[in-house]
């Protein structure tokens, strides 16, 4: 801790003649600003600042690297995510938040150029081991996407789809029950209970996103991944989703990518700040926002990087 403090102070003087680390010295054409950012990262070594470990860890990533062909998108990320905790991933566009999130349910498998190294365990089991079927994994780790993407089917069928393919309901009554409770938990039941047969695509954006959340929790997952779930929504719909996340956090481990600092502050217990594929800093939410340890984190949350 103290060590990082010192280095940070060393990095503070903006125009100071910081000696570029040897590795980057040759990369003159990058431009001064870009090089400075890179320098700061390397200056900290590749260590993440803050507390990557947590009590009662549920999803543990150790030295995770992701490559898209030659593009090294995630660099050596180590992070523990606790049981029933909400953790927010923040950082500038293209820093690898979505990529890291998609590692957790192996959605990167469907991208041909993507390659993942390191280990990720869910409840102690390696999710990349060859005897684990990604289909089973995704039933335990649900995902809500940036743009609401209901199926072009009825509201009922949208929610019933997951339980159907996994055979979670023994009969129609049980399926009805799952659909109703899921919609209820997603706070959508009141609005749609009289039009379950209408297409899910006919709902408003906020309703569609809650439908997607209902669809996800209908499979009864343990972890829910959310990739900027509110970025396509208006402030009122956003507020409803945030309340919903709060309620869901009692039962689910939630990993949420967000661009909104307020949102991260409102819903999460911990915040992880990514920068150029590195996990720069991770800590309790109020610590990150009131007293960030890393210069980059501070720059980001104060709006200097964006």
């Amino acid at each position, binding site marked *: 801790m103290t060590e990082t403090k010192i280095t940070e102070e060393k990095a503070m003087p903006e125009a100071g003649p910081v000696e570029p680390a040897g590795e980057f010295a040759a990369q003159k054409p990058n431009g001064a600003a870009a090089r400075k950012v890179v320098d700061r990262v390397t200056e900290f070594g590749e260590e993440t600042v803050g507390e990557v470990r947590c009590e009662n860890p549920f999803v543990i990533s150790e030295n995770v690297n992701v490559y898209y062909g030659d593009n090294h998108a995630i660099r050596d990320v180590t992070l523990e995510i606790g049981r029933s905790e909400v953790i927010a991933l923040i950082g500038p566009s293209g820093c690898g938040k979505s990529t890291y999130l998609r590692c957790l349910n192996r959605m990167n498998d469907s991208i041909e150029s993507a390659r993942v190294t390191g280990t990720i365990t869910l409840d102690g089991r390696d999710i990349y081991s060859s005897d684990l079927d990604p289909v089973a994994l995704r039933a335990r780790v649900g995902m809500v996407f940036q743009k609401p993407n209901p199926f072009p089917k009825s509201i009922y069928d949208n929610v019933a789809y997951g339980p159907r*393919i996994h055979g979670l309901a023994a009969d129609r009554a049980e399926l009805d029950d799952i659909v109703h409770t899921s919609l209820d938990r997603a706070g959508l039941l009141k609005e749609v209970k009289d039009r379950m047969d209408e297409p899910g695509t006919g709902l408003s954006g906020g309703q569609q996103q809650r439908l997607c959340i209902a669809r*996800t929790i209908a499979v009864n997952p343990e972890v829910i991944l959310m990739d900027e779930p509110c970025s396509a929504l208006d402030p009122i719909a956003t507020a409803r989703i945030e309340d919903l996340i709060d309620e869901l956090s009692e039962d689910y481990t939630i990993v949420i990518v967000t661009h909104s600092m307020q949102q991260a502050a409102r819903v999460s217990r911990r915040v992880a700040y990514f920068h150029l594929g590195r996990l720069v800093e991770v800590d309790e939410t109020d610590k990150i926002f009131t007293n960030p340890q890393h210069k980059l984190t501070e720059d980001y949350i104060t709006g200097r990087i964006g």
Partner: protein
Amino acid sequence: MRASRKNSREIVEAGLARRRRKEAAFRASGMLATAVGVIFLGVFFATLVMQGASAFKQTFIKLDVEMSASVLAPDGKLDLAYADFDGLVRNALRKEFPDVSGRSERRELYRLVSIAAGYQLRDMVAADPSLLGSTSTIWVPASSNVDMLIKGNIDPEIDESLRPINDAQVAWVESLQENDRLETRFNTALFTNGDSREPELAGIRGALMGSFYMLIVTVALAFPIGVAAAIYLEEFAPRSRWSDLIEVNINNLAAVPSIVFGLLGLAVFINWMALPRSAPLVGGLVLSLLTLPVIIIASRAAIQSVPPSIREAALGLGASKMQVVFHHVMPLALPGMLTGTIIGMSRALGESAPLLMIGMVAFIVDVPGGFTDPATALPVQVYLWADSPERAFAERTSAAIIVLLGFLLIMNLAAVIIRKRMERKW
């Protein structure tokens, strides 16, 4: 600052007139191009209808036929296969024109009526043997030359030697007309008969059935294979040099001249696999090769147009690749696949060149009753009739083209309707 802003406004305004002129010129040329296209199409349809419409009518002659037993059963026994029904027609004609004498004159007289008249009488007697000995008034088809004369396709004013119908025959026809013994009616033979050397007997049913059986084979093969190939290439095949090569080849295949597929069919299906010549089965096989690339390309485009977010949603819920494809991608891509298939089918329906290579150009009188019966197809029938010297076949050629175009129109309309109806918004 201000001055320069004003200046730029002036420049913009000065250029406006020129911009508008250019736009007007572009619009005018676009309209001209469209008009040229529409005019050509209009001329094409107009001549087709003008030439072909009369083929849907046929001239009939009213005769009082005596089913004389002495002609039909001279030795007391009626044998339908050998009985001289044509003799009855000849007798009836002689009775209608008692003044006509002399062998050659009479022969000219007999030529007014189609040989179909004899068949018609035979069918009547076969259905009701009690007619034997009675006299009935029936309408029989006129010969094609009379038909052409009535329809105005033969000009009676020109020199006798220049027309297939002589002055005496013209006079007889006129007399029949005066006695209300001549009438034009709807030409059902065109739709119920197979091909014939006699134009008034020739119909498109054989060709229609041939085309029908071929298209069944084509749909049954090309649709499942094409869709399966498209799904495999889009959803499962790893992107590699091989898949690129396959893609290029499929696109090339779509552009291969159709006659090449006919040669392939001849070599593979007839010479090597020893399938029957002239059969709709072989025609259908060749046409499925021809339409396969069209269907694959259309189906791939349809699959590509399914938004990736739908796939991700299903994958994220734990659907397997197969489930994603069959629960989500297929239903959304199906309208596009069907449209592509119908367009491929309408191309297959209009295809003649490859069928020539596999012997479907033969003169076939019988209407095919199955996939291995010898048959022709509609466009080949058009080709055969267009090649016939008789004037009456010219109008039948146009009629066959009208029917063919009718089917093509229906198919393309179906494609549009399917696209409109089934396409979902998301």
